[in-house]
Structure formats: C-alpha cells, structure tokens
C-alpha cells in the first residue's frame, strides 16, 4: 500500500535519441512521483516513451540516447536491516540524485538491483541462453549481498520457491530454453526481487505470455507486493491490467505525461481526450444488444517522431480540439482536482 514517504521523484525528464535522421525526443518533459509501496501504472501506445522513462530511472538508456535534462531523485531509506527497524522507527532518508551519477559508476551499479529492479518484457530474450537460471540469479545475490556461492545458491532456491517455481531444488540449474515462458518470467521476477528492491519496474512483463499465465503472473506480483511491500512501476498498454494491478496511473503520449490520476478516476472520470479515446477503444462484455455499437479506435496514427505537431502533440487526432488554440499553444499541466492532473488546453484555468 502507498505510504507517505516519497521514493522516486522525476522532474522535467527529457531523454533524447540522437540519430543520423534527427533527434527523437522519446521522453520530453515528464514529471511524476512514486511513493513507497505504491503501484503506479504507466499507460500509453507503443513508442510513447514508457520504457525509455523506466530506463532513464535505471540509468540504462541505450546509445545513442541520453538524458539531456531533468532530475530523478531517489529517496533511499538508509537503515534497511530488518532487525533494527523496530528499535529505530525514524529512518534516515538519503536523497540521491540519480541524474547526477555516472551511469556506469559504482554507486549507480549498487542502486540497480538493490533499490530499483527491472522485470523486462520478453522473458526468453532477457535471460542469457548459455547460463543456468540459478547462475543468473545467484550472481545478483553474490554481487549485492557479499555472500559466498553456497549461501547464494540456497537463497536462490528460496527465491524461486517464493515466486512459485515448482521443484526449485531440482530446476535451479535449468537453462532458460528448458522452461516455459511463464516459468522463465517467474525466474526473472525472482532475480529482480532477490535483493528486496524498494521499486520494481515491470516493463510489460506479461506481453509475451498467454492470458492464463498472465493472470498467474499478475496474481504473483500482487501477492509479492503485499508480502514484501515494494513499490511497483507497472508499464503496460493493457488498461484491464491497470484496473487489476494499480492504485494510480499516468497516461503518456509522445514522450509526455498527459494525465495523472487514481485508477478509479481514470475509469470513471477521465479528463484528457486521449485517455477518453483509449477507454472507448476497449470492448466491453455484457453490453446490451440494443446498445451494440462499433468499437471505436483512435483515429490517425502516432505522429512521426521527427515531425512532432506544433502545440498539443495530440491535436491532429483529437475530437475536441479547438482550432487556432490546440495547434498553437503548448498545453499546461494543470491539477484539476487534488491528485488528478491533466495536460490539456480544455482545462486551462
């Protein structure tokens, strides 16, 4: 559950990719916060900058991309040993500006995997094909917890058990290709959780899986969260998953956050025309035959990243655009209600 302590704050993050064809502004001014224990959904179409935002937080943006401006701050609880937690309730909070760190430096490496962990999209491609899963999990434990091989292996088996891996003792030495997609993803989750991170970034962790396995993995993540109490940044384009998993949601479009709200408000009173259009494009079960209508899709396509429209980047596809305003002015980010922000000229005070 969401706590009062801020975990990550992202301020005006801009991550650009400098390609021969021009500059792609994959993330172009993103602001949001993640609190301890919170589940934040990040929703948007392919290429809207969700994954790049996640990689910016981890400082693993691939070349030729780089963070050009903005600030990412991690609020680390200094005392993380559970034995002392009871005696010392006022934990020290250490502020670390991740954007100031050397992405390949020692401090950033010690934050990755321990404070912030990643569960990537494709469990097959995300595991080395020539190392056993046990080797790949134990490696993280040995790296961050400074234990010997034997202890690391025992902990690896514990972790596999925790994520519901059948027969972990026998299968700890399996190679990725010997496992099903669901088991591989469980192994990746075990790997991410083995150092008890404060934030788990799940980048479409179920996209490559079938629906049944997806449901199992989602249930697993929810259970693990209530058990371990970490925050989850859940990146997806599936609004159904958002409804199941998240407390709060940010909606991204063309490298910007266009709406930030609680999950209830997202489904009951979405403000941004893009969010509204997204919700209209979901088929609903149990609709009465009389009300049967064609399923709407958002008209047009995502603009060319080299030719971002002037004004609001969504205006060419927007039903409610105001001619002469939306195609001229940059929309401001306004807080319409407490905790409900939207970037749209319709809500300009």
């Amino acid at each position, binding site marked *: 559950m969401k706590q009062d302590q801020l975990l990550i704050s992202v301020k005006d993050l801009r991550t650009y990719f400098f390609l021969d064809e021009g500059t792609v502004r994959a993330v172009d001014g993103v602001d949001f916060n993640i609190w301890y224990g919170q589940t934040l959904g990040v929703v948007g179409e392919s290429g809207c900058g969700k994954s790049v935002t996640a990689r910016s937080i981890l400082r693993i943006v*691939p070349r030729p991309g780089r963070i050009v401006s903005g600030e990412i701050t991690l609020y680390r609880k200094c005392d993380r040993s559970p034995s002392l937690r009871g005696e010392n309730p006022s934990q020290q909070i250490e502020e670390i500006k991740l954007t100031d760190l050397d992405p390949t430096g020692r401090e950033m490496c010690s934050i990755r995997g321990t404070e912030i962990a*990643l569960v990537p999209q494709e469990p097959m*491609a995300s595991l080395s094909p*020539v190392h056993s899963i046990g080797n790949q999990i134990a490696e993280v434990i040995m790296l961050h917890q400074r234990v010997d091989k034997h202890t690391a292996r025992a902990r690896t088996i514990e972790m596999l058990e925790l994520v519901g891996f059948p027969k972990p003792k026998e299968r700890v030495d399996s190679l990725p290709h010997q496992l099903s997609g669901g088991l591989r993803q469980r192994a990746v989750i075990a790997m991410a959780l083995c150092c008890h991170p404060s934030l788990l970034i799940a980048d479409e962790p179920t996209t490559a899986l079938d629906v049944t396995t997806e449901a199992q993995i989602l249930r697993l993540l929810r259970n693990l969260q209530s058990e371990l109490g970490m925050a989850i940044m859940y990146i997806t384009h599936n609004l159904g998953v958002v409804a199941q998993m998240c407390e709060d949601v940010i909606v991204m479009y063309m490298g910007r956050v266009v709406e930030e709200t609680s999950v209830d408000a997202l489904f009951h009173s979405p403000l941004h025309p893009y969010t509204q259009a997204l919700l209209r494009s979901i088929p609903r079960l149990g609709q009465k035959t009389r009300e049967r209508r064609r399923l709407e899709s958002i008209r047009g396509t995502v603009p060319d990243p080299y030719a971002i429209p002037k004004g609001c980047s969504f205006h060419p596809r927007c039903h409610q655009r105001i001619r002469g305003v939306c195609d001229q002015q940059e929309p401001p980010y306004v807080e319409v209600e407490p905790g409900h922000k939207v970037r749209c000229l319709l809500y300009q005070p």
Partner: protein
Amino acid sequence: MFAYIVRRVLIMIPTLILISIVSFTALQLPPGDYLTSYAAQLRTMGEQVDEEALNSLRERYGMGQPIYVQYWKWVSGIITRGDWGQSMEWQKPVKELIWERLGLTVALAVFSLLISWGIAIPMGVYSATHQYSIPDYLMSAFSFLGVGVPAFLWALIIMYFAQTKLGINVGGLFSEKYINAPWTWDKFVDMLKHLWIPGLIVAIENTAGELRTTRANLLDELNKPYVELARAKGLSERKLLWKYPVRVAMNPFFSTVGWSLANRISSITLMSIVLSLQTTGPMQLRALMSQDMYLAGSFLLLLSALTVVGTLISDILLAWVDPRIRLEA
C-alpha cells in the same frame, strides 16, 4: 556428453574411409604415373631410359594392377603395419618423411591460431564496444589490410625488413646447426625462436577476418535484452560484457576451429615456399607434380584426418560452451 563423443568418433571412421578412397582415386586420375613422368624427365635431360628397368619398377610398386587392388594394398599396409608406402622420388618409406613435417605444420597452425585469437578477440571486443571511435576505425583499416594482402606478400615484406634492417635470417624453422640434428631441448627452443615470424604472418591474414567476426557478432549481442537485464541487475560493464555477450559472440570461433586449422594449413603451404620452411606444403606440392602417389596420398589422407579431428574438437568445444547444443545431442 561421453556418449556424444563416442558417437562422433564412430562417425569419423566411415568419413575417413571415404576420404581415403576419394584422395587415392584423385591421385590416379591424371594420365600416367610416377614412372612415366620420371621417364619423361630423364628424356628431356637427354638421358637414356632403360625400359626394362622401368617395367621392373612398375612391377615392384604394383602399378599395373587395377586401382582397387593398389588401394587395398596401401590401406591395409597403413592399418596393419603403419606402413604408408614408399616414396618413389625420395627412395624412402613415406613414414620417414612425413611425421616431422606434419608435426611442424600442425605446430605452426596451432601457434598462429592462438596468436590470432589473442589479438582478434580483445581487439574485436574493444572495437564493438567503442563503435565508430578512432581506434575502431584504425582497427577496421588494419583488418581490411590484413584481409586484402595475401600472406605470401606479408612473408616477402617481413623477410625483406628482417633481413635488411634487423639482420635476422627468417627463412627456415631452425638455425643451420640444428637442421639435421636430432630433437633436443635446444633444438626445440631454437624452433620456437623461428616459429613466431611465420606464425605471425599466417595469423595476420586470419586475425583480420576474426576481428571483423568478433566485432559483428558482439554488436549483434550487445543490444540484446539479456545484456540490458544484466546491466539492470547492477553488474559492472566489464563484468557483464565478458560474462554474457562476449561468451555468446565467441561461439562461431569454437564451431570453426576445425576448418580454421585446415585453412591455416593451406596458407602455410604458400608461405613455406616463400620462407623455405620444412612443413608439409612444399613437399606435398612436389609429390603431386611428380606423381609420387604414396607420398602425396599419405599427406592428403593425414591432412584430411586432421580436419576431421579438428571438427570433432570444435564440436566438443562448442557443446562445452553452449549448453543448448549439448542437450540436443
């Protein structure tokens, strides 16, 4: 794994039989035999050819007999007595001629393989991880030069500079006093001193290609999600680079050890002629030209056998580094 190796060794047997048949037949294909070319050679020198002596020699070597009879005599001699036949040109048993040269050739091939891996892998890794940097361009230029300039030309250039500027005699594999001496530790050390120049020359040609292979393979691997996940786990760049993508990028090296060695043996032939090294190449070439068929055939068979064994070694190596292959076997 053991069953896999045993099976592979068993498969080698029919392969070798087939190779011996093909090489023996190929040697018989040109018209005439050693004695006709010998006689022709004598005639051009204006000497008298004694037909009767030729016929008795033909009888002795079994040359009038059908091919399969000759083949059977040769092969059964090898298997039962280790007798590889008689070299007609050298008037010596083949086995006395080939082993030392074969040993030197293999030593040279393995030595050059190690040199070129030792250079190509670190340079290729650097090149891929620093793509489009100045050292990357320099290494690319070097590798194009290496691929483009044939080894024998390098041999000539290096020989020229070593001789005129450094005053080192680079021809041959031994100092004069050791050439006909029996094998001793001093002779071995002397060989190593001479081996590095031809080893390096053969290596240059192959290093260039291997550098490009390493670079290209590694560039493919570097952006794979498993590398990104390794980075997200908090591994340092150097550690994750050598553990994951380099390991996968090395697979082609292991899978090509076999014919990579065979290739080197061919490059060594040309270079040995230029540098006058006592390897198999020059002797085999002469044996082929004079139709000294048992000598030529034995070389062909042994070098093919080496390739087959090399392939086996590379398969075992590959199964060792890539568990996906191990399990399918």
